[in-house]
């Protein structure tokens, strides 16, 4: 862990060393409050995805501010370890865990917190059952249904029902329910999102009904992501929404204007070699371009033309000017790809450092 830079609370933004991953704390709190209001009085609650922030301090803040199930999702066992060791009482690993070593680690976590894991194969369920029996722990299994990503998940309802039956017969396992995950393109109109959520999530409700029709009870129907955080919660039967991007936000979801851009990269202009061009000290290692170039925040006439590993080239329209030493804020096209490149967040309120949070699960790929 790189400990060399930890600005003191109270430091003004202008004095931060750059590039720097910053969070506007007012915006972060605002985004958390949108969630707590949205889920007030509803059956469905948010289970925030920790893969987006990788930081127990943020997970706890999110849970405290309300609207959640009181736990988080994680993408990897190592990420779940950081969350459980950081005191989060319930963690749902939304990927299949198949290697023996990882299954043993999952079972160790199940002795410390409530653990749920996605499953799409009976052989995998058997492996987890065996590993859970010896230490006498219980792992919650959630059957993943494929709903358009062409990735993991059972493809057919019958397949899911058969798997649910097998899981209920295995020691060390508790069948908890079903999950799905959907990705959509740009869909600014809420009505379109209602239709899309109903279309993609319908299969999941069908699977739930079919399994329950066999006399097998479940308490979790988990689906969703930021784009469907509100519309999926209106679908009868859904109990949990997996959402994470809303917290820092990204231009990919620019149409969701109820959320604010909380996470940004602060960069400094290091060179102005030609008229109309300025070079910043943040490249793709600081703000991934995997889903598109970042956008310059609140600086009319300045845009990102290209990025290399450690540089960004800014284009200036006539009238806009930048000089060496000026600071800019960049908002990412995809925020979790940005966050996973950093060791800490610098939280600012009204332009001054309020907190520094270690991104304890950064680099947790396993």
């Amino acid at each position, binding site marked *: 862990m790189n400990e060399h830079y930890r600005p003191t609370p109270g430091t003004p933004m202008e004095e931060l*060393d750059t590039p720097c991953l910053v969070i506007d704390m007012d915006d972060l709190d605002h985004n958390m409050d949108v969630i707590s209001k949205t889920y007030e009085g509803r059956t469905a609650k948010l289970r925030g995805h920790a893969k987006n922030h990788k930081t127990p301090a943020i997970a706890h803040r999110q849970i405290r501010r309300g609207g959640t199930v009181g736990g988080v999702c994680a993408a990897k066992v190592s990420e779940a370890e950081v969350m459980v060791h950081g005191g989060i009482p319930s963690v749902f690993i939304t990927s299949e*865990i198949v290697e023996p070593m990882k299954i043993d680690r999952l079972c160790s976590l199940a002795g410390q917190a409530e653990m749920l894991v996605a499953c799409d194969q009976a052989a995998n369920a058997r492996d987890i059952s065996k590993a859970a029996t010896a230490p006498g722990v219980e792992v919650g299994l959630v059957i993943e249904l*494929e709903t358009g990503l062409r990735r993991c998940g059972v493809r057919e309802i019958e397949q899911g029902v058969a798997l649910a039956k097998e899981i209920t017969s295995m020691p060390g396992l508790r069948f908890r329910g079903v999950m799905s995950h959907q990705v959509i393109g740009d869909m600014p109109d809420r009505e379109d999102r209602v239709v899309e959520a109903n279309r993609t999530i319908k299969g999941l409700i069908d699977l739930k009904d079919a399994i329950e029709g066999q006399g097998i009870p479940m308490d979790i129907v988990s689906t969703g992501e930021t784009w469907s955080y509100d519309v999926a919660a209106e679908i009868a039967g859904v109990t949990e929404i997996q959402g994470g991007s809303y917290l820092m936000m990204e231009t990919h979801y620019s149409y969701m204007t109820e959320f604010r851009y909380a996470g940004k990269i602060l960069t400094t202009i290091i060179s102005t070699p030609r008229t109309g061009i300025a*070079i910043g000290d943040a490249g793709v*290692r600081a703000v991934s371009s995997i889903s598109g170039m970042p956008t310059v925040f609140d600086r009319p006439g300045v845009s990102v033309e290209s990025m290399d590993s450690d540089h960004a080239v800014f284009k200036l329209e006539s009238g806009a000017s930048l000089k060496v030493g000026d600071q800019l804020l960049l908002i990412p096209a995809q925020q979790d790809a940005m966050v996973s490149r950093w060791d800490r967040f610098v939280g600012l309120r009204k332009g001054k450092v309020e907190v520094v949070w270690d991104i304890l699960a950064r680099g947790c*790929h396993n």
Partner: protein
Amino acid sequence: MFANSGFSDILLANQVVTVSKIRRLCALAGQTSIGIAVDSPDNAQQLSSGAVAAGVELRVLVEIDAGMGRCGISPGIEAVALAQKIDGLPGLKLEGIMGSVPGPKGDDDPTQHEAKTSANLQIVLDNKEAMEQAGLSIEVVSVGGTHCYAQAIEMPGVTEVRAGRYPLMDHRLKSFLPELEPAAKILASVISHPIDGIVVLDAGHKSTAPDQGRPVLEGIEGANATRFSAEHGIVELEGEAQNKLKAGEKAWLVPYESGATVNQYDYFRAVKNGKLEGFWPISARGRLA
């Protein structure tokens, strides 16, 4: 980081412009010999003041734009004037000139790329000559990167090649530099085989950083890594490959851009003949500022 690890000569091949960073740079120059790239007169003045205040001397290379369209002063009169200014400033020692030459993209034609590289390298040499004609002493002519390492040493006048990619190599340069082998790879596991013809790996873009290009699955004919989402990699299988890569099995991915991949990890696992030999911390990972 590198100065504190004991290296005695470091070239910071970039511009350092903020007051706090210039102070750190000058503190390092008190411990070890530090070279720095400069592309503007104002920055030269700033560095000079910083070096004088700290009582150190910074070695300076004038960075010129050798085709990157990024940092670097425009070649010609402006570059010579900047070199003259640096030569006259206290605390700075004009040591030479540097330029970065654009590397090839995956589908560039190697012959055309070579011709373009020669022309770009020549820009640096022409400017060196112009500076010398103005009476300046230019000891160092530094060019980069790895893609031109062999071409650059054929050009009289080049004294240093800045190259970092060759030890680990990657898919992006493989077809241009077939004499170098990709040494750094990502080891991934199959976590799901949901339908015939598709398997899902536990390595997505967070563990591979495919911003500049997708990693390539190695060693299994008919198996191609075609999609990466944040946490998952999708491999499509054709022919014989359909019987390979069961859940729990391993696959090797060669990064498209090794530097970007390395930056996602805290350690290298050094493997020799299939066995773990070393475990090296990537000490400067995340040192983005």
